[in-house]
């Protein structure tokens, strides 16, 4: 288990590294769907996002403006939040499986 935790720690560092150091250099061009919407003429039908005024909207930290540092910080927060919720969620799922197993054994 310790070896696995080491792997997970290393993997998390890789993910953080990507989100912090590589994401500011990501291609800013519109993605495939956006491009298709533009060329096919339905791009303008997009509505503003309900949460577009959020502090992290569009992968930037609003409080420090736009730019690479803003993107890096947003990436760091997102990666850590996803990791935290993910570990918590799958931990809960595991515990519920344990309970289901116990119920199955109790009824036999």
């Amino acid at each position: 288990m310790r070896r696995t935790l080491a792997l997970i720690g290393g993997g998390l560092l890789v993910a953080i590294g990507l989100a912090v150091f590589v994401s500011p250099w990501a291609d800013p061009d519109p993605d495939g769907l956006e491009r298709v919407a533009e060329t096919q003429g339905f791009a303008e039908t997009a509505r503003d996002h309900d949460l577009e005024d959020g502090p992290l909207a569009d992968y930037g930290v609003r409080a420090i403006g736009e730019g690479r540092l803003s993107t890096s910080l947003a990436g760091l927060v997102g990666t850590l939040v996803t990791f935290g919720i993910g570990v918590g969620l799958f931990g809960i799922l595991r515990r519920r499986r344990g309970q289901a197993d116990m119920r199955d054994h109790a009824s036999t």
Partner: protein
Amino acid sequence: MHIPDGFIDAGTSLGAGAVSAGGIGVALRKASRGLSEEQAPLAGLVAAFVFAAQMLNFPVAAGTSGHLLGGVLAAVLVGPWAGVVCVALVLGIQALLFADGGLTALGLNVLNMALLGTLGGYAVFAGLRRLLPATPTSATTAAGIAAGLSVPIAALGFVVEYALGGAGGAPLGAVLGAMTGVHVLIGIGEGVITALTVRAVLSVRPDLVHGAAGLRPPAAVVAGTR
């Protein structure tokens, strides 16, 4: 491939949301059965990695970028159902925290990327694993091909949704052709990234790779970890 609010009408979005909710419910139940003590935190890592990787847009054509979807990568590492949950979790966080992907469109995005792309891609992976020899190289190749196909599969989901309730009146044939074309290209990137990542994990901890079950020679021998 994150659909913003407005592209697809409310009825289709709601319908997709209902299907997605059902699909995620099934995935949560099935994922909980397969989780070992080690795989639970590993699945959390996979979700975090998918989030980070989805920020890394790469060029695929003039004026167009793509990014990793990550569904097949997640499914090969932690199993198809946990993989579905990982991608859905990332999509939810992206929509709620980063305004990436509409809120009413979340059901559409979960359906296309977390369900269709991930499960469709994993089905290809499982089929290829049955056909190919049980070696780490074949498993890696299967993961790459499956990941490459998962992206246009997810894109087809959008085309169907557009046919049912798309705005703007674009001709369906043109949308189909354009979506398929660009997402086949993005799929190439997806396939390469997935194959490299799977190979990397196989070389250090093959025992943790769900899709590596039954490989001969045991990848552990190749990595010298026995």
